């Protein structure tokens, strides 16, 4: 047994440690996920003007500030009693703003954070022994996904074509946000009751022009099949089976064309999505008759489906005036819901969320409370903040949120399952039937890619069809309405379900503010029953090397599993609250 620890897990937001015990065959037998940072700025909204929250909570995370801003604005809409009357064009501005950020965030994850691991020398070792096909596949992986400042065997490796091309696109997407929000990150355009800036006709034209440039990147690098053909046959497919068949037939055509030439280049029709879809999965590669795969479907799965579920709070408003802040299932484009580990669908009930601090660095007294009643004071004895105590110790700043007592995966995969997106649902079902976990590194990444494509499709509708530049952009709020009132904001951040809750006192100032964020769900440590969080569950039983020999010194499987969740630790770390006996009126932000 070897202890293999990755600390820090870089190329994520924030600072994370993954510690594992690994057997001789490379299988992980135990794992702890530790968030390494305590910022403690959670109480800063206490006794303050609630409106500041939409600004300041954006500083929880600089990668998805807009999601925090929007979850907060939703809570404020509710607090000031205006959610039901926010004008539809303001809601569209918010959709466009969030949609662009989600696309940018996913693209960053795929190309800048996750992608570089595909150029890991472990794959060189495996693939270059597999003849011409293996060599050609390796050439594509390093040629597309190598990061900047990269060296292999002492030789500098140039940054990959997809990697380099993605950075200007990310910038372009942020520029689109700035056009309608002032700047990015940290924009100032959110306000309860609406939005601060009505995009003009000129802005809409510019957005459309930017959009075409982004789509040019997509067609050159990401997806070589025609965009609308892809949407029609996957997102809009009449059944999951049809969506999966369309993709496997498309991949089969590509394989047939490339078999003799061993040409897997973009010019030969292999966009990054096609490439990863074919080679990323052992099961799919075998189905296609490919001699090599990365085996990403064999790692990062859940071994016991009864201990996991897939949670979505719901995001993106429909084009109509007002929305129901308490019931996101009814009027959101991405619905709320819960899918069990066995892929059964349930309704989402926010009351079923609890949090445990049994294994977190807090002076906990009571456990498994609903978030609003949570009571967590950080350890202040430096000698107790240690990360090497094993699974029974306190080992993370993250707390352990649970839905109905069960660990929950949130994010693109959870959203795609909850909206019953045909392609992702079909793949999940197929893996389930073949005895693989429906969730694994491969389906998690494909869900993120598919969601990016879907948002690109929806965005065009919001910008060019729905949004009316002459429409109303806000309704006034009455500051007195906040007095002795509370608000709930449920939303979807790129990394998953995000909720903000605010209460105000008789002076209209904040008495309690809290968030439950995707990072806490995903990276969570064990709960009071000793049940591991999603990342920990996916590590345990997986191999540290999905293909090839066991290499404790290059556990690329751990890198993939950790990064496949797109961790955000700044978001994840719950700190103090709250309503407990020590601090009855304080604020907690994660």
């Amino acid at each position, binding site marked *: 047994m070897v202890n293999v*620890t*990755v*600390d*820090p*897990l*870089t*190329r994520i937001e924030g*600072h994370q440690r993954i510690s594992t015990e690994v057997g001789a065959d490379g299988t992980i037998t135990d794992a702890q996920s530790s968030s*390494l*940072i*305590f*910022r*403690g*700025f*959670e*109480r*800063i909204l*206490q006794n*303050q*003007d609630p409106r*500041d929250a939409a*600004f*300041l909570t954006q*500083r929880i*995370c*600089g*990668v998805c*500030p807009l999601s925090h801003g929007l979850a907060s604005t939703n809570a404020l809409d509710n607090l000031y009693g205006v959610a039901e009357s926010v004008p539809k064009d303001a809601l569209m501005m918010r959709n466009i703003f969030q949609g662009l950020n989600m696309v940018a965030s996913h693209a*960053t994850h795929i190309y*800048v*954070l996750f992608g570089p691991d595909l150029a*890991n020398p472990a794959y060189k070792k495996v693939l270059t022994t597999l003849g011409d096909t293996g060599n050609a596949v390796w050439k594509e992986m390093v040629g597309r996904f*190598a*990061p*900047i*400042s990269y060296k292999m*065997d002492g030789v500098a490796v140039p940054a990959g074509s997809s990697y380099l091309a993605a*950075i*200007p696109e*990310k910038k372009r997407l*942020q*520029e689109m946000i700035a*056009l*309608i*929000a*002032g*700047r*990015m*990150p*940290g*924009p*100032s*355009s959110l306000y309860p009751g609406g939005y601060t*800036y009505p995009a003009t006709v000129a802005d809409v034209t510019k957005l459309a022009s930017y959009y075409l440039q982004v789509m040019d990147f997509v067609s050159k690098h990401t997806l070589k099949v025609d965009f609308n053909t892809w949407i029609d046959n996957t997102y809009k497919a009449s059944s999951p089976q049809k969506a999966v068949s369309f993709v496997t037939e498309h991949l089969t055509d590509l394989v047939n064309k490339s078999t003799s030439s061993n040409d897997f280049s973009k010019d030969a029709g292999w966009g990054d999505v096609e490439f990863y879809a074919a080679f990323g999965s052992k099961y799919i590669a075998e189905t296609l008759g490919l001699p090599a795969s990365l085996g990403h479907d064999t790692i990062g799965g859940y071994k016991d489906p009864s201990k996991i579920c897939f949670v979505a709070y719901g995001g993106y408003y429909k084009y109509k005036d007002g929305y129901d802040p308490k019931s996101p299932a009814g009027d959101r484009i991405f619905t709320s819901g819960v899918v069990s580990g066995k892929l059964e669908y349930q309704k989402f009930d926010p009351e079923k969320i609890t949090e445990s601090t049994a294994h977190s660095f807090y002076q906990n007294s009571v456990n498994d409370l609903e978030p609003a009643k949570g009571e967590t004071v*950080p350890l*202040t004895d430096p000698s107790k*903040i240690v990360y090497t105590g094993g699974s029974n110790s306190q080992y993370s700043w993250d707390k352990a949120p649970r839905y109905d007592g069960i660990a929950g995966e949130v994010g693109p995969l959870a959203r795609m399952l909850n909206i019953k997106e045909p392609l992702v649902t079909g793949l999940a079902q197929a893996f389930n039937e073949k005895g693989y976990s429906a969730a694994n590194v491969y389906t998690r990444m494909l869900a993120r890619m598919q969601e990016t494509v879907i948002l690109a499709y929806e965005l065009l509708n919001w910008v060019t069809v729905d949004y009316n530049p002459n429409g109303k952009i*806000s309704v006034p709020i009455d500051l007195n309405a906040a007095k002795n009132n509370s608000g709930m904001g449920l939303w979807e951040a790129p990394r998953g379900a995000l909720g903000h809750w605010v209460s105000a006192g008789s002076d209209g100032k904040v008495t309690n503010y809290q968030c439950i964020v995707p990072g806490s769900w995903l990276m969570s440590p064990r709960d009071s029953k000793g049940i591991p969080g999603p990342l920990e569950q996916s590590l345990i039983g997986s191999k540290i090397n999905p293909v090839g020999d066991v290499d*404790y010194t290059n556990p690329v499987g751990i890198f993939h599993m950790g990064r496949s969740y797109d961790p955000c630790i700044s978001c994840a770390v719950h700190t103090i609250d709250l309503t407990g006996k020590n*601090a009855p009126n304080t604020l907690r932000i994660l």
Partner: protein
Amino acid sequence: MSTGIKNLVRTLDSVDFLKMDRRTFMKALGAMGAATFLGTYKSDLVSALEFAETKLVWLHGSECTGCSESVLNAGNPDLVQALQKLNVNLAFHETLCAQQGIWNDGKLVNTSELNSEILLEDLYKEGKYFLVVEGSIPNGPDGSGRYLVIGNKTFKETLGEAAKNAIAVIAVGACACWGGITSADSEVAKDTDYRGVAFAKADSKGGMLKELGIDKPVINIPGCPAHPDWVLLTLGAVILGKIKLEDIPSIVDDYGRPMVFFPPDHTVHENCPRRGYYDRGEFDTEVGGEKCLWKLGCKAPYSHADCAIRKWNGSVSMCTQAGGPCIACVEPGFPDTSRPLYVEREDVGVAGTNIDTVAKVAVGAAAVAAGVHAVRRMGKGE
């Protein structure tokens, strides 16, 4: 290159641009574009550099990665162009690097090509790098620094090691400059005891380097987030030797900010796209309008930055242009000194009561001027 621009380049070549006044600088930049601007310096000066390739070590403390995001949004030059033009080797950046910390039974394994902790040890040993710090540094609990531990080391310890061996330090963003949002007033602030590299809020004696007894030149590039131009142009000037280390005190203000970007005599308010409404005494009282945002709490009159000239994200917009009040995120003490964000403040500058006398006078004057004008204009408007 046109003759006019060539002449301009010749002029520029004789000047360290961080020493320029804002107007000359903006004119030069506008005429050439930042890419040409940096490129010009490069071709003339590379031979004068002690080492052809400059190493950059970028550390992340307690942060949200927003400043790295912002720098990735840079245009003309973008980050990759800038690194190439300046011949910079971004030797370490936690969000971008190929490496990660890899440990077997508590020992570092593999090589610097895959292991970030071995890479960092090598870099510290070699020295001769510029250190960029993003995020603040917890001193707590009890001076232990254990509220942030990365790779089995407190970030406090890491910063000390990295700074000792650096040529100079550039603090990027409000958190690295003075603690930013992590230092905001709260009941846990005394436990966490967050510090900037050279300042704690507006206190130049409270920076983490002082705490560690390390004396290194530090340039502060504040903002929440920092503007990519501020970061890349400062790096450019320092890396190309346009600013000698001993010259740094003359180009920065009392808070270590390059005056060319954060001019003591200039605020965002002066070039605000909504300034015309202010001058006519026309103010928005609800969001979504086009008039002056003063009554919605705008802090532009107290914010010493060139945002309104430079604008953001490819110069497409800025906060007030999009209808959001300026939050003065470049000032020491942000966010406390800017709150409440949506309430106008005529009595006191946003830098509040925590700043030293010199700045207090300047900011106070701005506050009085803005306040008096606002009242007068409003009176006229009615």
